[in-house]
């Protein structure tokens, strides 16, 4: 049997949350899911590393969460709608998180959006993205 061809792996700056990623990131995403409850948000804020122990994250995943490395969390199996709950716990909006993931300041990112957003030109394939 041939492995499934992932055409979308050529889209630059994008980690597609497929079944493989969802298996890898189960712990991160279920940890984030727990933050939907206010009591858990408070418990996490009080002792982040201790709270994470219940979710069986890999050391790399734990490190990415504690350091708020948003892109790395996605690469390690997190999904944006889940990690957004960690963002919310930190008081971040989706737009503030997006700014961080693109390496821009919030103002730069908001200005880019007001000017019509990021153009798809130059952002369709990995080869053109590098230029």
């Amino acid at each position, binding site marked *: 049997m041939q492995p499934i061809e992932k*055409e*979308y792996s050529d*889209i*630059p*700056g*994008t*980690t*597609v*949350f*497929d*079944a493989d990623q*969802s298996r890898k*990131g*189960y712990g991160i*995403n*279920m940890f*984030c*899911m727990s*933050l*939907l*409850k*206010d009591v858990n*948000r408070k418990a996490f804020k009080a002792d982040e590393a201790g709270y994470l122990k219940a979710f069986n994250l890999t050391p790399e995943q734990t490190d990415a969460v504690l350091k708020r490395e948003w*892109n790395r969390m*996605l690469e390690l199996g997190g*999904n*944006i*709608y*889940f990690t*957004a*709950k960690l*963002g*919310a*716990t930190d008081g971040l*909006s*989706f*737009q503030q*998180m*997006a700014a961080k*993931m*693109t*390496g821009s300041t919030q103002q730069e*990112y908001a200005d*880019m*959006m*007001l000017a*019509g*957003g*990021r*153009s*798809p030109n130059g*952002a*369709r*394939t990995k080869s053109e*993205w590098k230029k």
Partner: protein
Amino acid sequence: MARIVAGVATSHVPAIGAALDNGKTQEPYWQRVFAGYEESKKWIAEVKPDVCIVVFNDHATAFSVDIVPTFALGCAAEFAPADEGWGPRPVPTVHGHPELAAHIAQSVILDEFDLTIVNNMEVDHGLTVPLSLMFGQPEEWPCKIIPLAVNVVLFPPPTGKRCFDLGAAIRRAVDSYPEDLKVVIFGTGGMSHQISGPRAGLINSDFDKAFLDGMSHDPQKIIKLKHVEYMREAGAEGIEMVMWLVMRGALDEHVHERYRFYTVPASNTAVGHLILENEGLAAAAE
């Protein structure tokens, strides 16, 4: 007999809900967005649907990664607004129509669409923001709501064609329901946006406008779009637009485009909105 009279397509950007809930609608940034829905609010107040079927996606609120249903129909009597991490939105509880929902579930499953039945579900911004845009801020929502959640979070979502065909099956189900009910169907999400990773902020207005045209005039063309095209052209999260095709499949082959609105941005997202009327309603209005 129940009948679907029209379809509404709209983005469901969470920041739109936050702007409403925090009284920011008069700020110029948000005024630009809300002004685009003034006509629509008047329109739906005139149409007075008894039931709205709202096709939306759950954003890791009711469904985690434990269970990910592709299509999940809300058959409960009510659905509470969820706490998505910022506290629940201060909007009314959503009241369902369990009898019609059960009829749709039975009808489409026997029509070979294997959907999941949900009897307990909180609803997030994906469902409540479109209600706020169309109905404003009432004490109670003015009609019954049947939520249909579509997985667009875990790849792959259902194909555009599958969504369209499910819409057609929902149409057949509604048509065969004996009670005299006026039904409007919403397709929500989109338009172009990417909120994840270094490519976040992507907007493709050309793609969006072609998609709006396709919804109105040539749905057979846009149901052929592949997932990778949505993601490459309209951003990773732009794939939400497949949900609009459920709505389109539930309408007549030829529809009357009653209203169109498009603006960039709302937070990270291009906002698109359409009202499409079936011929019966368009004729009644003339």
